[in-house]
Each structure stands twice: as C-alpha cells, then as structure tokens.
C-alpha cells in the first residue's frame, strides 16, 4: 500500500491507497513550528492497525523548505562566485558571506582566466573562522565546463559540512539563478537533513523501514537519500500535489485547465495530453529567482472566503481574505455567503450570510439575491479571466526557430477540472460562463495527498557536445567524455537517455524509464573560415511528470 501526505498551511492531508482504491484518509492540524510532529501524527494516524510490511511506498509533500526560505531562517552560508566578463557578479549577492573571485569560462566551456587558489584559501579560512558550515560554489558557464567549481571545491577540502556546486543544481544557462539556487540548497540543507533523518528514525522504530520519498515542485518525487544534494527542489510542492492528484481524471487526448479553488486563493495549472506543463525557467521564492523545476502554476487571490465590498458603487471581490465567511462566524461577506443566499449551500448559517450580502445590496440598490448572483458570477469570472490570461501568456512565450514560430503548438484547453473546498459549487457556473466543460475531481478533498502518493520520480538531463573541442558533457551528472568529430545529434540523445535512466534509478524511479521525452534538441554546424569545424549539440531530456505505472486500477476505484 502507498501512503501520501501533503502538509498545507492549516492542516495536513494523508491518504492510504491500496489496490482496492482509497483505503483511508485523515486530516491533522498543521503546527508550523513543529512540522516533524505534524508529519509524524499524520503517518501514525493513517498507518494505525496496518501491518508495516504492507506499506511499500511513503511520499511526503511538506512546507519545510518553503517555510525556511520564506521566513529567512537560514544558517550562514558561504558563497564563492566566479564571474568572468559581463554583469558584475557582486550585483547577484544572495547573503552575507558572499565572495566574488577571479576565473572565467566562456560560452563554449573554454578557460579564459584561471582561478587563483590563494584567494580561495583565504576565503575558506575566513569562513571557518566565522563558523560557516555550508558552502556554495558557482561559476559563470560552469554548466559548459565545471572545472573551476570543482577546483574550488577541492581547495575547500573537507572542512565544511556540505559544499554545493552550481553545475550540479541544474543544466540550464542562467548564472544569477544558478547562484540563487545553489545558495538556497545550501541554506535549507541542515534543516532538511535533520527533519528527514528524524522522520525516518521514528518510522523505523515503528517497524516501517521503507525509504521515504519527497515531492518536488515539478510534481515528481525523489528518495530522501537523493534529496540531500538538492533539498531546495522540495520547495513549493503543495500546488504540484493537487495538480498531480487531478491527473488520474484528466483526459488523455485533450488539453485541460486545473483549478484548485481554496478559501483564500485559486491555483491553476495546464494539462496537455494528461501531462502538466512545466515552467521553462524555475520557481520564484522568497525573492529569489531560481532554476528549481516546477509546474507552470498561477495563483490568484480569489476563493470562497475572499472579502467582498462595494467600492465607489462597484463590487470588489478579493484579493484578500479577512477571515471566514459570515455564515461561519466571519465579519466580512464572501462568495461563500453569496452561495448561502443563493441556496447552493443549505447548512446552518444562512441568516448571517444574508445579513452580510444585504448590507452590500443596500449600497448597490439591488436585492440580496441579485447581489449574491453578482458576487458569485464575479468570482467565477475572475477565475476564468485569470486562466485565459495564463493560457495567453504560455502561448506568447518566445521561440527561437522559424519552425516553432509558424508551426509551434498553441495551447487551447477545452475542459476545466476543479477541486478544493468550494469547487463543487463553482463547477456549474464556471461551465456556463466559460463554455468549457467542467468536471469536479472525485475525492477532491484529498486529491493533494493522492497526487503526492502516486507521483512519478521525475528528473532531467542536459547534454552539451562540442565536437571541435572533442567533448560531450552532462555537468549535472558529473559526466564528461571525449568524442570524435563524427559524434552525432542522435548519439547525444542516446547518451542523454542513458544518463537519464541512471539518474531516475538513483533518485528512486523504477518503472519510469520509458516515460521519457526529448525537450530540446538543437544541433549547429560550427563554421570557421568557410569550412565546418565541428558540431555544437544541445540536448535536454526528461522523465515527464505523471503518475506511477499501474496507478490505473487504483485511480479507477477512487471515484467510488
């Protein structure tokens, strides 16, 4: 059986899935100051009475690293940054112990200027003196040639708990983001390691020795042991969990929008043929722009509890939440109150809701029902507008070839999947207003935990080959080989796939190997003088985000 646990802001959802479908689900309140006990309580609650040997997979999605980053509770980190010509690397400063050093690599991976070992030794000495235990080392173009980062790490030696190297955190070009991402990995490393060691130890004491997996922002998971090198990838996994939970119900051959409608916000994502779209660069978190792979999601301040007021004769809904709906004892009217007035919700509380909506109605010169209808329609409409803007944004992302420009894929969703507390009530009106078919995700209350439970192990590999220099390299994988002048684009793809399969296995993927695809495949003849001197090849492959193999029977039974 599989356990999925998703820690949210107010509570943690946890599910137990078996071949028969959803076996059990539970909710425990989140104690933001003690996530360890929150997680432990959730796991205890769901596994009570289940023989430990029956549980073969545990996946957690936590707010641990997100909180650490957003709240700035990082330990001191030493950042050593080698810039080379271009923007002054001092402008990319991430934290207090940030040192820029010499050394330069160019776009082809050629060394332009050597690193000065004495300057590194001096920095190492200072860091040791000031008690810094985590270090990040980042060079410009290190993903084309990591030799300087490796040399700096060698000089630093074994004097630090952990040294993070920029070329290992992501394969794409973006020096400032590589710096920020490396910094965040180093900054959350201690809290991440402590937390998961503690969880693992506690579970082992209960006889649960199955390795824990952790959900990432890209909707995939990795084993805890592998995450030690990339702890920041576990940030912002919450929105991804819900999207993954909706996948089992997404049409395979169609494009769809997923709305997770909550009390405060609505999070949205786009599915293309059952696969969620990824953000092409990386998440932004706590003021840092990163290379952390994530699903393309968009969040707006519109939900069941959004505050409604009349401003200069017009209705304003959200973006802030000022407490619960009046029907539930709040002091400000909300779309939920409108739903009470419209008779969509028939539980206790209509009187308070009506009082709130009537006050708005008086200002607008309308009846309470008319006002409620406007509030509800306004909320639905602003969600649809935001989704359409998101689709337009995705479709207007720049492309760099004539082919993609003229024949590139345009996303045109025809279906909306909704989940979240008020989703059931919104579905019908969303359908009427948008013209899209709207479906409610079954088991939406725990879709996030189900998504965590069933998510696949995802990863990505970038291969860069330069046959003039005679190298093929995948810096993230710490891989370089010498290649001849005939090394082809096809061979580069094969190499990338081989490295991807190895990486997936290392991260905990078992059957994911064939859920792979080429994301980028560019090959250029390098012409010097009037002759072709070599080929410049860039290949990026990935395990697509999705659900684990043989989830179908499980998912099929989730609708019961």
């Amino acid at each position, binding site marked *: 059986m599989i356990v999925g646990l998703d820690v949210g802001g107010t509570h943690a959802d946890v599910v137990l899935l078996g071949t028969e479908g959803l076996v059990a689900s539970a909710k425990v309140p989140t104690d933001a100051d003690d996530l360890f006990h929150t997680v432990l309580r959730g796991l205890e609650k769901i596994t009570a009475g289940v023989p430990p040997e029956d549980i073969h997979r545990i996946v957690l999605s936590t707010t641990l690293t997100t909180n650490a980053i957003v709240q700035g509770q990082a330990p001191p980190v030493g950042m050593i940054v080698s*810039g080379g*010509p*271009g*923007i*002054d690397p001092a*402008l*990319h400063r991430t934290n207090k112990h940030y040192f820029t050093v010499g050394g*330069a690599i*160019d*776009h*082809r991976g050629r060394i*332009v200027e050597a690193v000065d070992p004495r300057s590194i030794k001096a920095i190492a000495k200072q860091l040791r003196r000031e008690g810094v235990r985590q270090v990040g080392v980042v060079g*410009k*173009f290190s993903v*084309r040639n990591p030799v300087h980062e490796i040399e700096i790490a060698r000089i630093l030696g074994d004097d630090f708990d952990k040294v993070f190297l920029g070329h290992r955190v992501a394969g*794409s*070009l*973006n*020096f*400032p*983001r590589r710096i920020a991402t490396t910094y965040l990995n180093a900054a959350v490393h201690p809290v991440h390691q402590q937390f998961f060691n503690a969880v693992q130890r506690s579970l082992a004491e209960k006889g649960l020795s199955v390795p824990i997996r952790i959900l990432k922002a890209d909707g995939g998971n990795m084993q805890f042991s592998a995450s030690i090198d990339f702890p920041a990838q576990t940030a912002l996994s919450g929105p991804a969990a819900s999207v993954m939970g909706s996948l089992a119900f997404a049409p395979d051959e169609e494009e769809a929008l997923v709305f997770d409608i909550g009390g405060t916000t609505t999070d949205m994502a786009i599915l293309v043929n059952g696969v969620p779209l990824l953000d092409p660069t990386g998440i932004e978190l706590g*003021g840092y*722009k990163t290379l952390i792979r994530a699903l393309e999601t968009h969040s707006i301040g519109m939900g069941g509890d959004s505050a409604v007021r009349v401003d200069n004769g017009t209705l304003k809904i959200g973006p802030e939440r000022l407490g619960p709906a009046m029907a539930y004892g709040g002091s400000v009217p909300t779309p939920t109150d409108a739903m009470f007035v419209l008779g969509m919700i028939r539980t206790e509380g209509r009187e308070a809701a009506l009082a709130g909506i009537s006050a708005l109605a008086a200002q607008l010169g309308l009846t309470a029902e008319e006002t409620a209808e406007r509030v509800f329609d306004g909320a639905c409409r602003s969600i649809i507008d935001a989704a359409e803007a998101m689709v337009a944004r995705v479709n*207007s*992302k*720049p*492309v*760099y*070839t*004539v*082919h993609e*420009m*003229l024949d590139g894929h345009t996303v045109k969703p025809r279906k909306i999947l909704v989940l979240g507390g008020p989703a059931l009530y919104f579905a019908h009106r969303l359908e009427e207003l948008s013209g899209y078919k709207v479906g409610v995700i079954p088991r939406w209350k725990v879709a996030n935990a189900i998504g965590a439970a069933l998510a696949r192990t995802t990863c990505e590999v970038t291969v860069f080959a330069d046959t003039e220099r005679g190298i093929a390299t995948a810096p993230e994988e710490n891989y370089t080989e010498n290649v001849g002048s005939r090394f082809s684009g096809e061979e580069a793809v094969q190499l990338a796939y081989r490295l991807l399969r190895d990486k997936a296995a290392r991260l905990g993927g078992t059957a994911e190997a064939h859920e792979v695809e080429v994301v980028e495949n*560019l090959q*250029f*003849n*390098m*012409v010097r003088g*009037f*002759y*072709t001197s070599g080929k*410049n090849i860039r290949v990026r492959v990935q395990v697509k985000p999705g659900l684990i193999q043989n989830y179908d029977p499980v998912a099929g039974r989730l609708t019961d």
Partner: protein
Amino acid sequence: MIAAQHKTGLVFFPAFDWAISPTHPEREERLLYTQDQVFEEGLFDIEGISEFKPDLVTVNDVQRVHFCVPDPWAVMTESHFISAGGAKTIGMAVMNKEVERGFALVRPPGHHAMRVVHGSRGFCAVNIEAIMIEFIRAAYKVRRVAVVDTDCHHGDGTQDIYWHDPDTLFISLHQDGRTLYPGTGFTNEIGGPNATGMTINIPLPPHTGDEGFLHVMREVVLPILKEFKPEVVVNSAGQDNHFSDPITNMNFSAQGYAALTSMLKPDICVLEGGYSIEGALPYVNVGLILALAGVDYSRVREPAYDPKRIRQPAMVTARIAETCKEVLAIWDQRQRLRERAGEAGELISRERTLFYDTDNIVERQKETVRVCRDCGGAWKVDSSSDRRKRILAVHIPRHACRACQQTGYDWFDQAPAAGFDKVFLQDRTKDQFRIKAPQSAGA
C-alpha cells in the same frame, strides 16, 4: 536584485533553422553564442527588461516601403516576415509605452534592402527598420524619425528608401566605401532635391576605434539630432565594427558600442550585421542591452580585448576630424543646397545600375522625382533586371500635396500597359498599394 533605469523590451529571434547557405556568415549559428551569453547573464530576469514574442509582418506592412518584384513572397522567406515582425513588435511596445526603449535582436538583417526589391543584396531582402518605421507612422501618426546606422557597411538600402523624405533624417557611420561593400556612402550623398541634407554619410577610415566613433557621436551625430528634434530615434545596430569581425577592418570594442548606445539613447535598436559570432556578438549585445536599460556595463569585456593592439592610429584620428568638419558644413548649408537642387514642379531624373550580390542580379533604374516645396514629392522608378523583369513603381508620399498626388496618379494611369510586367502605386496618403498587370489592364 538588479533593476533597469529604463524599461527595456527585447525581441530575440535567432532563427536557429534559417541560413542563406550552410557556410554563409548569415547562418543558423550566428546568434547561438549571443543567446548563450544573454541567457547565462540572466538579462531577461533583470527588473525592467522584458522579452516579447515577435509578430509576423503583413504584406501590407512590407508594401508601405517596398516594391517587390514580382511580389513579396518571391523575395522573402518566412524568416524575413518574422525578423521584420520583431522590429515591428518592438516599435509597438515602445509606442504603446509598454517599454521606454527596445531592441530587436533578430536575423536576417535589412539595411541594404532598397525601395525596389528584385532579390537579396548584402544579406538583406527587405528593410526591417523601414517596415517598422512606416508601420508606426501609419499607426501612431509619428512624423519626424531619425535613423542612425552604426553598422560597418553603408546603409545604402535605408538611404535609398529615405532619399526623398524630408521627415526622415538618415545618418550612417561606416567604413569608407573605397575599402568595403557596398562601396557607397560618401559625404556628397546628401539626399534628393526634396530632402537635401537629410541623408548624412560619415565614412570612417579602416582601424577607426572607440575614440573615433565616440568623437563622431559627440561632434556630429548628437548636435545634428538635437537640431532635427526627431520624435523617434532608431539605431540600425550593426556590430561588425568590432575589431574581431572577419569581414571588416575596424577597431571598435564592446565597451565602445555600449558607450555609443549610452550617448545616442535610441528609442529602438534593430540588429544589423556583425559576424564575429564568438569573439564579439555575445559581448557587444550584452553591453548594448545593459546600456539601453541603464545598467552598469563596465565589466563587459571580450576575452581578446587588448587596448594597445586596437589603438586608433593618429592618421585615422586626423582624417575623422576632417570628415566631421565636412559633414557639419554640409548640414549647415542644407537649406541653400536644397534650393539649388531644383525648381518647384520640375521633374528630375537619374539613372543607375544596382547589383544584388547575394542573389547575383543586376538591376537598372531610371528614377524621376517631382521637385516640390510643399511635400516630399511624388516619384517613380522604372526598374528592369537581368532576369527580364520590368516594373514601374510610383510613390505618393505621406503628406503629399494635391499636385504631387495628381502627378502620381497620372504616372500610374498612363503607364503603357505593354511595357511593364507590373505597375505599382504606393499611395501613402491613403495607405494603399495598387497593382496593375498588363494582361488584365490591357484587355
């Protein structure tokens, strides 16, 4: 967090699947290393710098500027529609005030493309700056535009397009035509009888360096711009003055280009040439973008930069000072020169032969312009190529007077049906393009 002082928009369209031919300088690889540098520097993440996806230009956009023979599809590839579209997208972003300044980093380039287009010359088929400028004139009612062409080659296409336009100031800085393609751009090329002085050529000797370029900017370009008071300044931002460029002989550097951009403060930059794809373009483009956005560029330095090796020779400095004096003297006399160029109502003709080096076509032109004191003047071009095509192109300018409008229509209506493959009328007062083919017209 780095923030731009000037909100800057970029269109980046490297056309990674388009080349004139596999080993041609204008090939797939040209902007590859520029993309690497731009991405690695994280320029699109800078607060205030944003990237736009280019729109394609329409045939109407092209026909505001060009007479394509026999039609636009015959001389343009998809990539030309996108590259001109990139310039247009940036023009719109600036005019809509979404950004303060913009740079279309696109290929193929355009500044050698003239009014009549039989094929490609100097790697260019259509003039992407002119298409953009005429679009913003039509859409935003802009009148006075200055084009400053800092490509190493004379911008003969742009010069030809604006030769008779008193509302467009065209200034070209380039390597002396006696030493480089296209072999034109001397100080005595100053514009037609209705726009005398509005074309300014500043030929520079081989080995001109940062000192020379910045001297010309300070002493000639900026003072003339100040007097002309353009509503929009466009920079044809070629990057082949760089000391490492393989097909030119200049000593300009990335720092020099960035400083020039800071001085010029162009509203819109459009990439032109530049073929040192590894040693120059990555650094020149980063410097240029930072300078446009008002971000510190002092550490942008190409690996091969050696100030001693590219110092400008004293003889070159002296020659440049002479040229500047000459150019300013012509500028100061432009009113008198225009009066002397012809009598109002007079028809003035010139004949010339043009060579399309890229497509190996020879074109013969006879151009006739009506001298006018009230507008830019109607003109017509009788053009035939060695591909046995002959067309007549008639142009009525944007603010044409009644007499010039009448002249244009007379030329179009009275053109002998049998003599031409096509007769074109570009009536800019109505933003209209009309085509008369003899088969239908003569029947």
